[in-house]
């Protein structure tokens, strides 16, 4: 089958792309040297951009607050692999908040680099990773718990109770609104994946809204993984009809075909990329807005203490408002990611039997 070969080829190219993409991460580390020192010099000066960015980024320790020299933080395990030194495991407290080097590694602007400049692969259990694990343990615990209840007959022959009542409408909503309308007769096959994606995003976003928590869904690495998984699921759902439409769009003149083919082919990659960026941007934007409103107090406070106090009620009111919107957005974004994945999967295998559906859909990115 020709289209299967194309499929494998696409998988290969995409894997290479992602690998290339990941290398600048490590290259970037060296450039931040000077900036960190500069930042440390003017520590007393308030830099809102830095504060906000620090809050939405990943870290090797779970930092809650600092009071003078006292740092309330939980050190997290650091796992490093370097081709020269092999695997290394130690606590992030060894770095003393980035002031000291340990074992030939040092912390620079939140990134771990080797002192001799060699390559280091950082597999540390960072703040995001730890929080994600906690959230997922809770999720698995909750869902297997209610699964047991369903097995015992509660909710099947009697009325659902407790967490069942809370999660059941969400599960049926994903089933009836995302899976069934978009996936035709194959919806049962994809439903576990769609539900997992939805709850995976939802629980991590909700955890990310807790004060002092990490911004997991607002991290590009997290969304890239989900996007790539979606990409592969879409890729393995495609049929020859789908590829026929991409590489030889029917019913258009030859010259337009030449224009359409690259666009169609690009759209295949743009779809998951849009999923990645949408989720990431929404979550980052929400966190930035909340943090901005809170930081506003300190910006005014640095001008005059009175100004800081007087602006605080307004700031808090706006922050609370955005916070409530973020709660809504947590559900909406999880749903959008799920439903669009379902739509893309549906597009990938539909049209084999009835051709009319394939042309009617608008371009959804």
């Amino acid at each position, binding site marked *: 089958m020709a289209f299967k070969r194309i499929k494998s080829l696409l998988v290969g190219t995409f894997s290479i792309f992602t690998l290339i993409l990941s290398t600048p991460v490590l290259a970037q580390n060296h450039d931040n040297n000077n900036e960190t020192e500069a930042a440390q010099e003017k520590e007393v000066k308030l830099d809102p951009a830095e504060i906000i960015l620090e809050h939405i980024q990943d870290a090797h320790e779970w930092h809650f607050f600092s009071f003078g020299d006292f740092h309330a933080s939980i050190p997290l395990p650091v796992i490093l692999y370097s081709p020269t030194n092999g695997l290394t495991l130690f606590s992030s407290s060894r770095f003393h908040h980035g002031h000291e080097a340990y074992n030939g590694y040092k912390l620079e602007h939140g990134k771990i680099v080797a002192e001799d400049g060699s390559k280091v692969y950082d597999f540390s259990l960072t703040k995001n990773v730890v929080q994600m694990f906690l959230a997922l343990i809770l999720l698995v615990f909750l869902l297997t718990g*209610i699964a047991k209840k369903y097995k015992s007959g509660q909710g099947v022959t009697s009325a659902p109770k407790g967490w069942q009542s809370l999660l059941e409408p969400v599960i049926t909503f994903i089933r009836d609104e995302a899976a069934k309308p978009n996936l035709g007769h194959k919806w049962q096959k994809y439903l576990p994946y769609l539900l997992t994606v939805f709850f995976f995003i939802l629980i991590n976003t909700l955890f990310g809204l807790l004060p002092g928590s990490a911004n997991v869904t607002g*991290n590009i690495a997290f969304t890239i993984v989900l996007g790539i998984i979606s990409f592969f699921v879409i890729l393995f759902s495609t049929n020859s009809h789908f590829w026929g439409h991409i590489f030889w769009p029917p019913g258009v003149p030859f010259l337009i075909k030449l224009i359409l083919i690259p666009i169609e082919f690009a759209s295949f990659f743009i779809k998951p990329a849009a999923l990645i960026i949408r989720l990431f941007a929404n979550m980052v934007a929400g966190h930035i807005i909340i943090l901005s409103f809170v930081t506003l107090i300190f910006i005014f406070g640095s001008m005059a203490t009175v100004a800081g106090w007087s602006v605080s009620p307004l700031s808090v009111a706006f922050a609370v408002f955005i916070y409530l919107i973020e709660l809504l957005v947590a559900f909406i974004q999880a749903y959008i990611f799920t439903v669009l994945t379902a739509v893309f999967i549906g597009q990938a295998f539909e049209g084999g039997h009835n051709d009319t559906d394939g042309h009617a859909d608008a371009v959804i990115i």
Partner: protein
Amino acid sequence: MELLLPALGLLFWTLVAFAIVFFILKKYAWSAILKGLNDREQNIADSIATADKVRQEMAQLKSENEALLATAREERAAMLKEAKETKDRIIGQAKDEAKLQAAKIVADAHASIEQQKMAAMTDLKNQVGNLVVEVSEKVLRKELSNKPEYESYIRQLTQEVKLN
């Protein structure tokens, strides 16, 4: 800019976490939950269908009952009518019979009266004959000597005399 560069560690752990969570949930949660929900929906749909069926059966039974009642009522009316007819017929018959019987009794009585009257007449005729003979004998004894000749003559005379 740093915000847009994915960290290798988080990429790796997210992938691992997603894979594990997906397989755990698929095996231990989704199958049971979805099956439970499906069963319940099936159950509810079945119950509604059964209730519908029962309702239809009830309606059918009711109409059947009504039909039965109607036929029973008709039967009763017919039976009453028949009974009335029978009664009328029996009464008529009885009346006819009674009339017949009475007529017969009256006829018998007439016959008997007639018979007794005839007997009484005959008796009377005989006694009157005897009386006449005795009287005539007493009268004639003195006058007549030929007694048997007179006697037969008188009997002839009485035979000729028809009362009525």
